[in-house]
């Protein structure tokens, strides 16, 4: 699912109306990264932007129970939030989890991407994963 995305300013793009994280795939070895980068972390080959799968499973999770230091831009007053690595297949991405109380997550939970609001330039920088069944 290649996209013309190297010019995209945000982390999230839309393909056929559905939100996807913008990663990169190595032209040589097929390794993926997120965010997109120009050359491969594994072999140094050139990479092209791709839309990553938007559904996956929680691979590991924890709860952030104390406010992170700046530049954190979360809710005020601080609300604890869950963080996970979500297995998307070609790679695992780190993201906040929402849509469920913070300590009710389990390894293997099925989740899908939800994009945050765009900024003034239309670029989307924030995203989270939510339980698949609630959408």
């Amino acid at each position, binding site marked *: 699912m290649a996209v013309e995305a190297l010019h995209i300013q945000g982390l999230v793009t839309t393909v056929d109306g559905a939100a996807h994280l913008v*990663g990169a795939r190595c032209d040589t070895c097929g390794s993926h990264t997120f965010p997109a980068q120009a050359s491969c972390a594994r072999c140094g080959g050139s990479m092209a932007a791709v839309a990553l799968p938007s559904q996956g499973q929680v691979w590991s999770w924890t709860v952030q129970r104390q406010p992170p*230091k700046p530049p954190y831009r979360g809710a005020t007053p601080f609300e604890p939030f869950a963080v996970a690595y979500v297995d998307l297949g070609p*790679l695992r991405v*780190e993201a906040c989890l929402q849509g469920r109380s913070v300590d009710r997550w389990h390894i293997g939970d099925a989740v899908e991407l939800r994009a945050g609001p765009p900024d003034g330039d239309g670029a989307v920088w924030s995203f989270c994963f939510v339980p698949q069944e609630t959408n």
Partner: protein
Amino acid sequence: MAVSIVGVGRHPFGRFPLSGRQMALIAAREALDDAGVSWPDIGFAAGGSRDGGHADALVSELGLTGTPFMSVYNGCATGGSALLAASHAIDAGVTDLALAVGFDKHERGAFAPSPQLYGLGNWYGEAGMMVTTQFFALKLQRYLADHDLDPRLLAELTAKALRNGARTPSAWRRNALSVDEIANAEMVNDPLTKYMFCSPSEGAAAIVLASPDRAKQLTDRAVELRAIEFRTRRFGTFEVFSPWLAPELTPSPTVDAAAAAFARAGIAPDEVDVAQLQDTEAGAELMHLAECGFCEHGGQAELILGGDLEIDGRLPVNTDGGCIANGEPIGASGLRQVIECTLQLQGRAGDRQVPGDPRVGFTQVYGAPGLSTCTVLVR
């Protein structure tokens, strides 16, 4: 490798009304005194600090002798890298006496580096993911599940660290706590409670190395630095500040560094009499026990619950309380481990002395941005 440790010095770890540089001078002079040499005898020096200033600025008070002094800025491997450089200088015949020094003085609270310093966008910090403790928890949570390990083992390891710290005059945290007090304390990042983490702290450590011939002239209690190996991450390891991970995990740089150190030393893990392992939090010690080859993954419960890791056990680990009881002045932390093993092998560890005349020591430091230094020490 033919390099001997002939002197060690340490400024206690904790919080002090001294600059990092002042603490470094105290540690360096103590190490020189311990070796029975003076600064002008040193033919090569290496040192480093993350937040305490330039190491080579120490020479303006040690003496401007013209000695080559290499400043090291290498994350959690700063002390280990300084020791590596100093040992290479001796091994290469550049000098027969070298000094390694590490020191630091960090602000209170968890480290909060700028995302840009790690090549990341600001969004990563804005989203609340630029948090070291969060990484430890994410790595550990998966490890516990993969290897069917009880989170209560983390409280057991923390209790051991604080018990050993209570017996160590130079340690910072010297109050023992019960396993229940630790397990039931405030949760910071599940499954880790507040007592299970080490905190950034202050302190300094220094080591004088000598060629074997010079060591024989100086002392009859030299400890041989049989191996020191430094490795950085390969593709697919699970490191701090990673917005993504590869679909298949690669063994940690600790696995590579430990295996290389044991191979170079010609010593097996089951021959080690005392070890210091990186315990940035209790889960790190848990994982490093297996990564260094002291047990199978999942085999930690038997070692911990069987008392094997206690000072009077089969494999005493973190006999001075480790990072949990000493805190982590990054530049000094790796050298603290080597000093603790040296004191144990020399029978100079006081109330925390490992019984039975220990002969082989092992140290492992691990940290950001994905690197490890391991040593094998033999008396």
